[in-house]
Structures are given as C-alpha cells and as structure tokens.
C-alpha cells in the first residue's frame, strides 16, 4: 500500500488524538511503518487539536503531515485551515453537525457525516471521532478492518473496557454511513 498521510483535526476533548492513535495502531497491526504526531498547546481542553498519522511500507520520513491524503475535520476552524491542503485525489471526512460548509473542490472526495448528531442518536455520545474514523476507513482503506478492531482493543484502556463495544459499534456505523 502506498503512503497514507492522515491529518485529524478538531477541538481538544473531541478525541482527535485518540482517533489518530487508533489509526496508527491499526497500521502497526497491519505490519506497516507508522508514526503519530500530536500538536500540543498550552490548553488541555477546548483549544484546537490536531494530529498527523503516517502509515507506510517504508520508514516514515517527516512525521508532520502538511499535505494530507486524508483529512478528518471536526470543526469549522480545522476545515477552513486544512481543506485546501488535501492533495488532489484525497479524501476529506467532515463532521457535518459541526461544519455547515460544503467544499467546492472537485479534485477530492468529500464525505459529510453528521457524526456528532449520529453519536447522540445512537447512544454513542462522545464517539463522533470514531464514527468519522470508520467512514475514513471505508473511503481510504488505511488499514484492514480487523486491524482497526484490534487497534481499538489496544487503545481503549483496560480500566475502560466497557467502552470497547460502543467503539466497535461506532466504527461500523461510520463504515456503513
């Protein structure tokens, strides 16, 4: 598989870094080279958060994703900031509950998922990030589905194992959307 450069962006607290971690772990489960690089800032909650995930057959060069092949955007600011950076032929998965804009670019695939609303509706509050990751998985195939499930069981901490099942549901919900 070619190099997958994924950029995930939104507000702190939306689980951006967690979703990125799941993607990176999934790549690892597939036997790929991976890297995960968070933005870090002074605020712990509510500020902008984004992270770069690289999945490749080759050792990762720059771990910083400036031109994403796949963008996962969970707020307007991130959408505005990064939508033009997506490479032609790339994919943007956008939480349409939080971003009420439509992209005019025709050289990329934009997928609008009302993930936050869906999450609330399906008793998956707080898992909009994972729903979007599921959609991203369907459109990019950044890892095998089984690898993503394995990654989730790795990334959900042992003390919070009761959250594993909802996470799995969220991934499938995103894939089926």
């Amino acid at each position, binding site marked *: 598989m070619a190099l997958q450069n994924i950029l995930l962006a939104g507000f702190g607290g939306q689980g951006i870094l967690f979703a990125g971690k799941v993607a990176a772990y999934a790549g*690892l489960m597939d036997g790929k*080279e991976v*890297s995960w690089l968070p933005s870090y800032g002074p605020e712990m909650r509510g500020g902008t958060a984004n992270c770069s995930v690289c999945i490749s057959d080759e050792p990762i*060069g720059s771990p*910083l994703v400036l031109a994403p092949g796949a963008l996962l955007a969970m707020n307007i600011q991130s959408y505005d900031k990064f939508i033009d950076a997506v490479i032609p032929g790339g994919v943007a998965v956008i939480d349409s509950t939080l971003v009420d804009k439509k992209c005019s670019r025709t050289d990329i695939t934009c997928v609008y998922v009302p993930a936050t609303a869906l999450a609330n509706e399906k008793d998956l509050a707080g898992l909009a990030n994972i729903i979007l990751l599921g959609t991203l998985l369907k459109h990019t195939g950044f890892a095998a589905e089984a690898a993503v499930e394995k990654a989730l069981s790795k990334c959900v901490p042992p003390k919070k194992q009761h959250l594993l099942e909802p996470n799995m549901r969220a991934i499938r919900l995103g894939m089926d959307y």
Partner: protein
Amino acid sequence: MKGNEALAEAAIRSGCRHFFGYPITPQTEVAAYMAKRMPKIGGTYLQAESEIAAINMVYGAASAGVRAMTSSSSPGISLKSEGISYIAGADLPCLIINVQRGGPGLGGIQPSQADYWQATRATGHGDFHVLVFAPSTIQEMVDLVGMAFEKADAYRMPAMILADGMLGQMMEPVSFPEEAAEVKTVAKPWATNGHEGKRAHNIVNSLYLKPDQLEKTIIDRFQRYETIKATEARAEEYLVEDAEIVLVAYGATARIVKSAVNTAREMGIRAGMIRPITLWPYPVKNIQKAAETAKHFLCVEMSMGQMVDDVRLAVNGKRPVDFFGHTGGVIPAPGEVLEKIKAIAGGAK
C-alpha cells in the same frame, strides 16, 4: 510509544534508578513516566524545586556512583548549565535530556534545534565538553540512551540526548533490548559512597585554586576528548557516495530532509544526506570525505543556522555550504527543502 516515554523506559532498562526532574513542556512525559515506574522498581523519582536543584541532585547521585539523569527542555537546560559545568569539572557521568523548544527566553513550546550551540559549545562555563547524541527516530532514542549512559561512564563525563519537541511528542513503534540483557557497568572507585575504612577518603570536586593544577586537570580531560573525537563520532550516510549535493541535518529535521532527498533523486538530482548522530564529537571525517566528491553542501536545521558552523569547519572552504532553516517552532517542509535542492542543482549546471 511516545518519544518521551521511550526515553524514560530506555533509561530504566539501562540501569538508571535515579531521576530528578522538573516539569516543562514538551518533555514532561519523561518525568511522568518515571514517576509511575520508579517507585515500582525501587528507584528514585524526585520532582525538584527547580531545574537547578534537579541537576545538583544528579551531581550528588552521580558522586555516589549510581546512574543518574535529569530531563528538561531549552529554558530548563539554561538553568541546569551551572550544574552541568560542575559535573564536567568533577568528572562525573550522568545523562541529561534536552527536548528542545523554541527560544530565546520563554520562546515557544514547538519543536526547535536552536540549542545546538549551547549543547556543543557552551553547556556551562569553563573549558569542557558534553557527549551529545541526536536521535532522529523513537527507536534511535532508545538505542542512544543506552549508549549515552555507557559512554558517560566510560569517559566520566556528562552525556546529553539532544532531541526536540517533535521527537518527544510523536509516537512510533519501538522494540527494546531484552530485559535480561546485561547492563554494562564499570567500577567507580572514585565514588563518594563511604570509605568503609578500606581506602583514603574520596573527594568529588571541581575547585583548584592553583592555576597550574587546574590547567593540568583540564589538559588531562582534553586528552580524553581527543580519544573520544577519534573513536566516538557517529553519522548516518544516505546516498552520499555519488551525491553532488550533500545535505546535512540531524534529529527530526533529518527525517524531513530524507523525504526531500528521495524526491530529488526521483527527479534525477543526485542528492544525499549526512546525518550526524553524535553532535559532539562531530563526525568531521564523514563531511570531509563527502567534500572530496560532492559539489555543494546544504545544511538544514530548525534554527537560524548553528550546526552549519561545524559543517563549514569540516568542509574548510573546499565547497560552498548553504543553509536553510526555520526557527521558533516552525518546521521546515520537505517541499521547501526540495526547492532549495533544485535551486542549487540548477545553479550548479
């Protein structure tokens, strides 16, 4: 595993049981990891009242003969510089980690390589050097921590891991050497750990009021430095053999440069890269050798150009040496580096 955590785990596996630190972004995970692990393995994690106190605790622990370390980021290293000078002056081994951020002053908290001069030229007052290792992957962080402890012990001097916020914060898979692997340690008959009535008292000290005496200790130390310079310099060479343009970069920047070199090769430009792994001693020979065949050097850093001094010293006027960089936490993009390479290639024709 996160870079900072990998550093901490590697130190523990290298037999370090004494960590003294102080929180500062972007290295705090090193301390947090130590705080979690050390009590479980009978080690010491101590959050000091300042960076100054932390490095002096390292001085005390190193005097006792144990493997001791501290970690910080740029402004904190400035505070530690006093202690580092004393540690060097007293010929004590220890490990110091600098996960660099932008400066000067409070600067910023994003990745930077602007402490190169500090690490290789002036980690503190006086005539001395510190071993400086510059990893560029999380795996290499792990490997170099072990080596840094070993070399520090072998040469009785402080060693530094010079990383940056990107390496500290990013996650990559790593594998650790087998837990059972023997930790190489050396006897430390000089340690102040109680004479037990078996020897004269040991003194750990850096004060010599008689100039000729002080000069002698320094000359002795610099003779050791000559051995180190001759045997311990390390670098990775990437596509250097037939390269017309040799890029020089270390740490996280070298990853970006490698991407740019690959793209340049695809475009038919014969670019290569030398990546210093030790910054002191500097891999002068690798640069000198490349200067025989390459036409042009380009040094890339996350600073206004610090390591480029060492590249120029090594090239010694033989070839042009250009510099490209960003500073203050701005990370150079592979595309920008590529543009520089293309400009040089175009000019060289």
